[in-house]
């Protein structure tokens, strides 16, 4: 029988996803693996994990990986990529990691035009620590540290990282996508591939923001969370290409 599909070599053979039902991390990890395999760079790739659920990727990927302190992935990646330009380096960070504690590192690496790839998973909430308010939490959305929901008077408004980074001159590529439908999954894969191809071509800082769900901490089942994603999250975080040079 002809084999028409097989698991990417970027994911360890025997691993079964331990992510929560409806979580999109496993889909994204698969897409990244496929892209790296298609670009034939798996044996020279380094993953720099952020802290939080993103860090769980270490148990699944088949290639070199390291863990940055919370928020510092872009600084760690700077050190790796600058000393080993042939290495394909990417950071994998959540919204708390990239946009709260690591905002300085993210902005500065982007502003220097560092030649690595950032995969930014934005689900509007802290996952592993248990549903606390994130910089991307929607107005009115409940969190364990904002039980009445995000109140702009107290917490301000959600931060839009692609839009903020788009104010900088240096970044090569900024796109926001999602994995809620097969069509969007394919679009996300295209975006990820472009972000890595840019690195191979030496174009500089490329970031793909993937708006995802967190059914567990949103307090919804997987299907409802998809509706929420489409109805609420995409309104606040419109999908699209912000920068492509």
């Amino acid at each position, binding site marked *: 029988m002809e084999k028409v599909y097989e698991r990417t*070599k970027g994911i*360890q053979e025997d691993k079964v996803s331990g992510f929560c039902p409806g979580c999109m991390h496993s889909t994204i990890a698969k897409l990244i693996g496929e892209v790296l395999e298609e670009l034939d*760079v*798996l*044996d*020279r*790739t*380094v993953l*720099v994990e952020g802290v939080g659920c993103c860090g769980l990727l*270490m148990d699944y990927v*088949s*290639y*070199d*990986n*390291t*863990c*940055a*302190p919370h928020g*510092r992935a872009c*600084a*760690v*990646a*700077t*050190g*790796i990529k*600058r*000393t*080993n330009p042939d*290495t*394909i380096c990417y950071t994998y960070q959540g919204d708390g990691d990239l946009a709260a504690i690591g905002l*300085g*590192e993210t*902005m*500065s690496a982007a502003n*220097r035009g560092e030649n690595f790839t950032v995969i930014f998973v934005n689900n509007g909430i802290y996952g592993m620590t248990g549903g606390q308010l994130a910089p991307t939490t929607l107005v009115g959305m409940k969190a364990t540290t904002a039980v009445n929901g995000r109140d702009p008077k107290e917490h301000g408004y959600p931060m839009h990282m692609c839009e903020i980074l788009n104010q900088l001159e240096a970044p090569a590529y900024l796109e926001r996508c999602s994995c809620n439908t097969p069509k969007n999954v394919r679009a996300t894969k295209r975006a990820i591939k472009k972000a890595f191809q840019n690195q191979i071509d030496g174009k500089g800082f490329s970031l793909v923001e993937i708006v995802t769900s967190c059914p567990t901490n949103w307090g919804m089942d997987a299907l409802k969370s998809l509706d929420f994603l489409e109805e609420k999250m995409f309104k606040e975080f419109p999908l699209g290409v912000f920068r492509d040079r």
Partner: protein
Amino acid sequence: MGRVLMKGCEAIAEAAVRAGCRFYAGYPITPQNEIPEYLSRRLPEVGGVFVQGESEIASVNMVYGAGQTGTRSMTTSSSTGVSLYSEGIAFCASARIPIVYVNVARGGPGIGSIQPSQQDYLQATKASGNGGFQMIVLAPSTVQEAADMTYRAFDLADRDRNPVLILSDGVIGTIMEPVELPPAKTEEEVKANKESKRSWACVGHKLDVAHRSWIQPGTFLPARLEERNKAAAEMYASWEPEAEEYLLEDAEIVITAYGISARIAKSVVDDMRREGKKAGLIRPITVNPFPYASYEKINYGVCKGILDVEMAIPALMVQDVKMGVKGRAPIETCLCSGGNIMRKGTVRKAAEELLLR
């Protein structure tokens, strides 16, 4: 190569390059700015990389990243900035990434002052970050030593796969003294050093899960973490302390000090000896591990007292000195703080008073 007159900071920077350091990241802070300034010019000449980080936190993490590729890497800062290193250094210690960093210490706590001090002793030797890790901490008392220790620190870091700290201060950083620079590693040597770390370096490997590089500053498994911590503790226990033990046999007073205070103290010992007064000196060269055994060499039969000299109020190293002396002689302190620099006359006066007892 003959001796050249160099500023402490520049000697540290040049020694690092000669040791094969090819990555530096740092953030401006007085009084150590000459190190990044020097390296921003010098590193590109040898194919190295200089990055001015957006903060100390970013800088130490860049060095953590660069160290993971097997590249000899360094960062430097001064007291306030070194506090911000805690997180990154703890990650280096946990993930066993060899890096070198330098504290050109200034007055504290907090923003303190920009003038020299020795107020970071406990931070440097006991807890430079969370989790109870240890580092070899070298304390230079001359520009020559600052250069030699920086050079050597890279070997120690590689040997142990652990961070090494040079605990200096604003005097050593800013004075100029004649220095004979250590020989520069050749490009082949630098390459070979990096290649020797290839097996664990996080730069990409043939797809083989068992042999991929997996840099783990932590683990979800307590049992595994305990094993790692045990292994690290064994390594810490293997370190040999180093100290200068000077004229102890018949010393009626023993002055003890490290770094800048030690050279001042030693000249007081020499002055007193010229007048027939029996003074001696113990100078910890590694302030961690601390040379407790050196205090066994004191002749407690004749010793009237120990004088602990530090540019720190309250006294900090004295806690270790007490553990070395074990109550066998009285310990007095001679201190200044906040950026004031220890005077020879002050040490002399305190030593004479102790001798009169």
